C-alpha cells in the first residue's frame, strides 16, 4: 500500500488514546480482536466504548482488563454461551458506567453524525424506561400531522471507529462487503482504524463488483495487517468462529481469577503472531 496509512498493530493500538470514545461492531460483523488484544497489552485506560449496537467478547475482554470507563450499548452478551460475565460484574458493581440504549437508537445517532446533524428522530422508545435514564434524549413534537410525540436522539460522534476487515487495497480502500454498519461508523467517527487480513495489490474502485463493498480510504486514518485478526470470532465468508476458544473464554471469564488466567494464556501465546 502506498501512503502513510499502513502501520503496525502496536502502532495502531498506541494511536488510540486513553479516554477515547471507540465505536466497535457487533460480534457477527468484522470485530478487531487482534487490535483489542494489542489495546490490552498497551494498557489502554478509560475508553468510552460504543457498541454498534451490541458487543460480546470484545467489550467483555476490554472491560475485564480494566480498559473501559463507560459503555454505551443495546446489549452485551456472549450469545449461546450465555451472559458476558465481566460486563455484568462491572456494570452491576458500578465500576463501569453504562448508557443503556436500543439498537436502532445507536444506528440513528451515528447517522445523525454522518449527516452532520445535531439529532435524528426515532420511532418507538416512548414509554420505555430508557427514556428516563437517558436524560439527554428529548421528546419533541412531530411538526407534521398528526403532530405526535417523537424521540430526538442527539448525534453520537465517536473519536475512533475500530474494526477488522478481509482486505485493503493499495490505495487504502477497505473491502467491508455488506457490513454497512462499518460504513456508518466510519462516516460518523472522527478517525477510523482498521485491521485487515492482508493488503492486496489492486484498486477496489477499478472493479464495480468490488467497489460495491468498499469503504473509501477518505474515511480511513490507520490500517494495520493482522492475520486472523478477528480470532476467536469469525470473519463472515472468510473463516468461522473458533468455537472451542470462545467456550474456553466463557468458562474462564466467569470469575475474575479465571479471566486473569485467560489473559495470561491468550495475550502471551498470541503476542508473537500479532
Amino acid at each position: 500500500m502506498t501512503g502513510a496509512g499502513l502501520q503496525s498493530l502496536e502502532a495502531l493500538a498506541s494511536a488510540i488514546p486513553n479516554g477515547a470514545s471507540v465505536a466497535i461492531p457487533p460480534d457477527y460483523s468484522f470485530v478487531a480482536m487482534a487490535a483489542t488484544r494489542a489495546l490490552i497489552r498497551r494498557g489502554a485506560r478509560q475508553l468510552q466504548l460504543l457498541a454498534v449496537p451490541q458487543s460480546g467478547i470484545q467489550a467483555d475482554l476490554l472491560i475485564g482488563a480494566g480498559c473501559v470507563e463507560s459503555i454505551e450499548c443495546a446489549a452485551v452478551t456472549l450469545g449461546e454461551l450465555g451472559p458476558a460475565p465481566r460486563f455484568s460484574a462491572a456494570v452491576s458493581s458500578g465500576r463501569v458506567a453504562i448508557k443503556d440504549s436500543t439498537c436502532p437508537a445507536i444506528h440513528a445517532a451515528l447517522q445523525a453524525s454522518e449527516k452532520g446533524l445535531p439529532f435524528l428522530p426515532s420511532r418507538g422508545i416512548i414509554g420505555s424506561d430508557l427514556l428516563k435514564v437517558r436524560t439527554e434524549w428529548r421528546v419533541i413534537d412531530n411538526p407534521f400531522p398528526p403532530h405526535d410525540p417523537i424521540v430526538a436522539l442527539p448525534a453520537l460522534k465517536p473519536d475512533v471507529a475500530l474494526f477488522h476487515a478481509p482486505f485493503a487495497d493499495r490505495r487504502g480502500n477497505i473491502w467491508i462487503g455488506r457490513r454497512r454498519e462499518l460504513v456508518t461508523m466510519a462516516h460518523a467517527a472522527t478517525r477510523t482504524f482498521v485491521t485487515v487480513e492482508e493488503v492486496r495489490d489492486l484498486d477496489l474502485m477499478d472493479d464495480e463488483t468490488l467497489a460495491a463493498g468498499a469503504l473509501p480510504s477518505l474515511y480511513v486514518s490507520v490500517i494495520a495487517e493482522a492475520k486472523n485478526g478477528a480470532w476467536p470470532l469469525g470473519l463472515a465468508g472468510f473463516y468461522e468462529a473458533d468455537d472451542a476458544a470462545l467456550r474456553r473464554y466463557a468458562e474462564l471469564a466467569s470469575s475474575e481469577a479465571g479471566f486473569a488466567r485467560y489473559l495470561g494464556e491468550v495475550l502471551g501465546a498470541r503476542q508473537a503472531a500479532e
Partner: protein
Amino acid sequence: MPPRFSQAELLIVTVARLLEGVEHVAVGASSPIPGSAAFLAQAWAGGETRVTVLGSRRNNDFTDGGRELFDCAAQGRIGAFFLGGGQIDGRGNVNLVGLGHYPNLDVRFPGSFGSAYLYFLVPRVILFREEHSPRVLVPQVDFISAPGTSAPGVHRPGGPHALVTGRALFSFDKTRTRFRLESVHPGETPASIRATTGFDYDDPATPATTIPPDEKTLALIRGPVRAAIAEVYPRFAARLVPPEAA
C-alpha cells in the same frame, strides 16, 4: 399411540401456529425456539414465508447493515418478531436490563437490544420465555425496556400478540391491556398456571390444552427445521432430536 415429543418441539409448534399468514418473520438474537418456529411456519407455507434470522448468512438477505432490520420493520415489511424478557409483566412490559433499582442492579441482563423499537412497530410481536415462574412473570417489571402498550397519540402500529412459555399460551388484549390464557400445555392445569404466574390475567371457563405436534410436523421439525436452525444455533439443534429418535 400419539407421537412422543420434547418440550422444545411443543413450543416450536405452538409458536409456529401464531405465525400463520405472516409474509415475513424476523428472528432476533438468542432465539433458537422462535427461529425454529419461523422455519416450521415457512415449511407449512410451502416456502412462501420469508424468514430472516439475525446472525445467519443463509437466512438473512439484508445488505444495508445493522440498521436494515429496524428500517424494514418501520416500513411495515416485517409481520412478526419475537421478544424475550428477564421479566414480563401483566401489561406486556418487558425487562431486558436487570433486576433491582437501576442503575445499581442486583442482576444485570444483557440489555434492551431492539425491543424499545420493534415492539412498537411490528404488528405481531410474540413474547417467548421458556421459564414460567413468578420470578419471570411479575406484577410489574423492575425496568421497562419496552412497554406493552402506549398512550393514545403515540405512533404504535405494533405490539404484543401472544405470550408463549414452557407451561402455557396467552393472547394479549390490547384494549384491556391484559393477557388471556388460551391454552395450557399437556401436564399443566389452570390452577398450576395461576400458581406459577406472578401477574393477574383473564382466563376462560374451560381453557384448552395446547395441541401437541403430529407426526408430520415432528418430521418437519426434526428434518428441514433442524437443518435450518443449526447454522446459527448448533448447540440447540444438536439437542433438538430426542435421544430415542436418533
